[in-house]
């Protein structure tokens, strides 16, 4: 693989890796806000409204950063992956087009009402806007996941004589074999990531003031999510693993570190995958457990890497280690959730500084697991862009190495300045103590993600000067 292609992959990984955190944050938080506002309307308890306003301000900034980094993504496919765009564009281009339209519509329509409309529209209409934003973020995820899943398990296409992939059936393109599994796994990941973040913020404020009602409520809600959704995610991940074993067996072999196909495959807990020698060095194994996990049978055989031509192997260490990072973090999440259950039933949820500290530490765990999971699935897709059909080496743009290197350096520098400042600002917002009677987003400064909605001006701005 040439330097230019490696640099182009690094650039895509860097820009999408930074971007994916932000939509995941928006997907999770939009749904959380919907729940908070729904609870407030139902129970009338002020604390839900306070929490809504507290997190709404954070949502505005995170959404804005996601829009900016998303702009870059819509051009990355062309700048660095031109041959991929040419050959696969007819199939997945329209899916991404729908994502843009959905996001545009959402931004134009309901986001402004949600951010600024609390005093201008009735509570029910405002709740409707919040629900639309939450649904819109899920719709965006739907289209992007459909396009991404197609790259993993292509369906509903034919190949034209010139090598282009042409759609024959959009239903099959969208609902390709891995799509339902990925969609569920991803949405749960977004919810879980956000829950851990909310839990960490709640715990952080409990450590400072254990009487703070808003901090208590958000911590409690987050721990319910961790206790219930983290185990569910394990089930969803297992289902996706079975699907991957069926359609992308080489990826599963890399995840598991299996080179040979033997009945009753062991589970490799740790070790150093050694592709050159075709074995895992220093491995710590549990007999038959690998077979049990991947095939759901004691005597099943995980297909080993040696069944596949070496040039079709994904880069082993990345897939192997990222998979362990994801699963390890997931198990820690389950442990945190169940620990909180124990404390809850002992009525010590608001008197457990040790649990709070653990929750603070686990704050970024969801996003780290999400990035690890993406590494597993996307690096595991290598050396193909459309799995089994189009190789990565045949997908890149004809750009010379210095061009790709220079643009990668520029992206790294600009992103560190811009998103560094942005994340710092988000942390500052989350470090601020939630108070009773929390106000909505600030009304004196522009918020980028206000979109084109005029709601803030409807009542806020002075009447237009006469004669204009």
């Amino acid at each position: 693989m040439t330097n230019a292609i490696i640099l182009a992959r690094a650039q895509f990984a860097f820009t999408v890796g930074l971007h994916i955190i932000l939509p995941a944050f928006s997907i999770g938080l939009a749904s959380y806000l919907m729940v908070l506002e729904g609870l407030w309307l139902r129970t009338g308890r002020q604390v839900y409204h306070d929490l809504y306003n507290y997190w709404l301000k954070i949502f505005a900034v995170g959404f804005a950063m996601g829009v900016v980094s998303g702009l870059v993504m819509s051009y990355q496919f062309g700048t660095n992956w031109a041959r991929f765009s040419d050959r696969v564009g007819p199939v997945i281009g329209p899916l991404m087009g729908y994502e843009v339209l959905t996001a545009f519509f959402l931004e134009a329509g309901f986001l402004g009402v949600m951010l600024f409309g609390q005093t201008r529209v009735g509570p029910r209409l405002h709740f409707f806007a919040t629900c639309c934003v939450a649904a819109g973020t899920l719709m965006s995820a739907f289209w992007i996941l459909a396009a991404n899943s197609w790259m993993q398990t292509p369906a509903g296409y034919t190949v034209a004589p010139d090598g282009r992939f042409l759609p024959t059936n959009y239903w099959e393109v969208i609902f390709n074999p891995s799509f339902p599994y990925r969609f569920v796994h991803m949405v749960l990941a977004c919810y879980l990531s956000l829950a851990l973040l909310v839990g960490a913020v709640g715990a952080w404020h409990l450590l400072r003031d254990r009487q703070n009602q808003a901090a208590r409520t958000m911590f409690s809600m987050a721990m319910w999510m961790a206790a219930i959704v983290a185990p569910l995610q394990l089930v969803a991940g297992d289902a996706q693993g079975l699907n991957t074993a069926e359609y992308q067996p080489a990826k599963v072999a890399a995840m598991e570190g299996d080179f040979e196909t033997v009945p009753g495959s062991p589970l490799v807990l740790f070790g150093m995958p050694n592709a050159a020698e075709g074995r895992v060095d220093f491995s710590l194994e549990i007999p038959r457990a690998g077979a049990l996990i991947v095939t759901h049978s004691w005597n099943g055989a995980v297909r080993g890497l040696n069944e596949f031509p070496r040039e079709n192997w994904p880069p082993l260490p990345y897939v192997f280690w990222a998979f362990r990072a994801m699963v390890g973090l997931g198990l820690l999440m389950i442990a945190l959730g169940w620990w909180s259950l124990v404390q809850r039933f002992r009525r010590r949820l608001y008197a457990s500084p040790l649990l709070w500290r653990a929750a603070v530490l686990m704050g970024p765990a969801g996003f780290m697991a999400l990035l690890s999971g993406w590494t597993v699935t996307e690096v595991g897709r290598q050396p193909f862009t459309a799995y089994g059909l189009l190789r990565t080496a045949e997908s890149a743009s004809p750009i010379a190495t210095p061009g790709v290197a220079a643009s990668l350096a520029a992206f790294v520098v600009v992103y560190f300045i811009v998103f560094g400042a942005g994340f710092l600002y988000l942390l500052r917002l989350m470090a601020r103590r939630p108070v009773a009677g929390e106000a909505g987003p600030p009304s004196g400064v522009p918020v980028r993600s206000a979109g084109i909605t005029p709601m803030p001006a409807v009542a806020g701005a002075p009447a237009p000067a006469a004669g204009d």
Partner: protein
Amino acid sequence: MANWLPPVWAGLIAFAVLAYVLLDGFDLGVGILFAAERDARDRDVIVNSVAPIWDGNETWLVLGGGGLLAVFPLAYSIILPALYPTIIAMLLSLVFRGVAFEFRFRARRAASRLWWDRAFLAGSALAAFCQGLSLGGLLQGIRVADRAYAGGWLDWLNGFTVLCGLALVVGYALQGSCWLIWRTEGALQRRCRRYASLLGVLLLALMVVVSLWTPMLNPSISGKWFGYPGIVLTGPVPILVALVAWRFWRGLARREHLSPFLCVQAWFVLSYIGLGISFWPLIVPPSLTIWDAAAPPASQLFLLVGTVILIPIILTYTGYAYWVFRGKVRHGEHYH
């Protein structure tokens, strides 16, 4: 064979790009005017005049890019590598400028505020310049071989493209000046009239040079502009430009508020129509037509359904937003 789809989609993509140029042009332009407008209070007024709307304006660019990938994937996959440095620089400038919008208000110290002001100015100017370079690079033609870009990564750089870049910086600055004539008052408005008058002369001169240079790039373009029957279609364009120019300076002289802005936008529309005539039916000059580059009818039709439903809603909403935010922006006032 659904032969009507590529022209329909070419029209829709062209419309998205035109909407972008008309809408984001003036808000990039007010950023460029930061070069001359140094007063902190005036800068706040300038930024506030576009703060509620600029984000929606920029989304048309995402629509243009995403749409191109979906319906003309071959054009997308040739144009972006050919113009690689200008596209990347433009995106990074827009990122920088986008966050500068927010961060200049959040900065606590005057020094860091000044820094974000500079980022706003530099990002706006560089984004405009890169868009001009990209337009020039596309117009002068792109070498294509075997369904891919076949040139080097600096092929786009020459006198013509630099001239196009300058023209767009001047043009956006003019849009920005006229926007501020419309939306502000007092000393700032008077200064903007002076800028507009100067920039108007400059832009007209650049338009003439670019217009005379363009047909020389390619015989097929000169045939359209100067040969019969093309001239029946192309002839009215310069005449209309001259008429609009007359109306523009009359509006400035009579201290009208809105007409200079509308005249500049009319100039942009006319130039855009001229470009359309030069391009048609090509999407990547000199070799690819919109039919060559089109995705299969199934792809184009699939996306068309959603687009014809959503675009009118978005347009209605945009129009409503502009109507609500009409009126003069004054010191110390916010639209938020």
